[in-house]
């Protein structure tokens, strides 16, 4: 599976490398578009010292971890949310006649190096934010754990978005509300949002475990919503559960697949 993925990704990279200038411009473009979110944070902190009880380096830390996870998931699997376009064009049928999982084929289709622009941007933010926070070594181990679990959670969200498109072939934009909406949500400390929304992203669609709950542990911050302390270590559990649910949803969607035409 990994071998097939790597092989297909490499082939797409070579195909893209035929237009090096275009590829470079697109990478820079992705870098700048994702930097806009960061500029928004910077402008907000021009007017205030704290947002929702968090300082600029703390918000940058939350932003950086969430965006590293999101851009890794997007780079590796984000393309599964293009499912409806493939269904309508009939190219999904072509994937089904190959002896390789259609999920892998979807994920890697048009594997594009320009999505690295977003990842680089996120890593830079994290590298700037971390030294300013003086995180003790007894807590810093959580950072790679949360980035990994966050990547799994976002991958699961992309997969759910793809699975949803087996049903809503005409309205793929609905998936964006969850994928890109999830990305927008986790860029800020959840303390700015309403209690109901936070309960929803903790217990229903567990985006709070991408960076918020483990981030509270790393930053040594009180939970403004007073949820149990052990939730800070529950990211692997949330990732596992959501991953399993999304895999089931994808399978169910594939079984219901109706192809195009008659």
């Amino acid at each position, binding site marked *: 599976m990994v071998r097939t993925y790597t092989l297909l990704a490499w082939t797409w990279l070579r*195909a893209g490398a035929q237009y090096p200038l275009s590829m470079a411009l697109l990478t820079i473009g992705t870098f700048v578009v994702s930097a806009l979110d960061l500029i928004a944070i910077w402008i907000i902190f021009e007017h205030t010292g704290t947002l929702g009880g968090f300082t600029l380096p703390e918000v940058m830390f939350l932003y950086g971890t969430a965006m590293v996870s999101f851009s890794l998931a997007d780079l590796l699997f984000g393309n599964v949310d293009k499912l409806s376009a493939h269904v309508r064009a009939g*190219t999904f*049928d072509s994937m089904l*006649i190959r002896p390789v999982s259609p999920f892998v084929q979807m994920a890697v289709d*048009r594997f594009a190096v320009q999505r690295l622009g977003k990842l680089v941007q996120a890593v830079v933010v994290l590298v700037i934010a971390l030294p300013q926070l003086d995180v003790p070594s007894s807590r810093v181990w959580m950072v790679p754990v949360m980035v990994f679990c966050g990547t799994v959670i976002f991958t699961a969200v992309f997969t759910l978005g793809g699975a949803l498109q087996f049903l809503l072939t005409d309205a793929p934009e609905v998936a964006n509300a969850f994928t890109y909406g999830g990305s927008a949500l986790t860029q800020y400390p959840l303390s700015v949002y309403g209690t109901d929304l936070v309960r929803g992203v903790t217990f229903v669609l567990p985006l709070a475990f991408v960076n918020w709950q483990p981030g509270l542990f790393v930053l040594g911050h009180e939970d403004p919503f007073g949820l149990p302390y052990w939730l800070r270590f529950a990211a692997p559990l949330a990732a596992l559960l959501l991953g399993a649910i999304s895999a089931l949803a994808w399978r169910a969607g594939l079984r219901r697949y109706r192809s195009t035409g008659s």
Partner: protein
Amino acid sequence: MIEVHQAGRSFTISRRTGLLRRERRVVHAVRDLSFTVEAGEFVGYLGPNGAGKSTTIKMLTGILAPTSGHIQVAGLDPTKHRTALARRIGVVFGQRTTLWWDLPLRDSFELIRHLYKVDRVKHRERLDQLTEVLGLGEFMRTPVRQLSLGQRMRGDITAALLHDPAVLVLDEPTIGLDVVSKAAMRGFLRDLNAEQGTTVLLTTHDLGDIERLCRRVMVIDHGRLTFDGTVDALRATAPEESSIEDVVTRLYTAAEK
């Protein structure tokens, strides 16, 4: 090689009839379809637009699950063992390519070798052979999107045969081809069937394909088989001296009544 036993596929279509009211309707694209194709046969599959040809092909290849009945292709249930089946059958859609749009043919074929896990030496041998027979040499390095329809179709056929499938399923393989390409394609398919013993099932609207290639013809209409027999038997259903076009037209319109 192909066994279809009382297979059916229905779709639920929901249509908006008022502001809030929806009307649900069940459409049977294929109903109660049964036939058997033996190894080495060359079978034509005919039917007017929307008769259920593509649905049948999609069920045989595992793209669509039948809603009733059983199907076995090359000894496998297409829905349950889709990926295993993919290694034993070749599929060509005339209307669209299964090749990678932005990649040169050569790269597509190399990918297929890996995806189907074909031995390197065997792959080379087969590719050389197909390249020669189908004359792919001159456009091997051209991205698929820049190929002419005839070139693309030759590329698609090669892609479908590289892993030496026991069954080849073709959905309108000669659609849009010029006279010369069409003749070349037919010659190739006939030789493939005669020399390698590959079982071929092909759908078409081109009755020339049927006359020149198939020993056996099946006709589907409104999701049911209306004819299954030899080309001669098909002719015998109409008065003598009728062209095959007339015979088929009679058959199609008879089903309307």
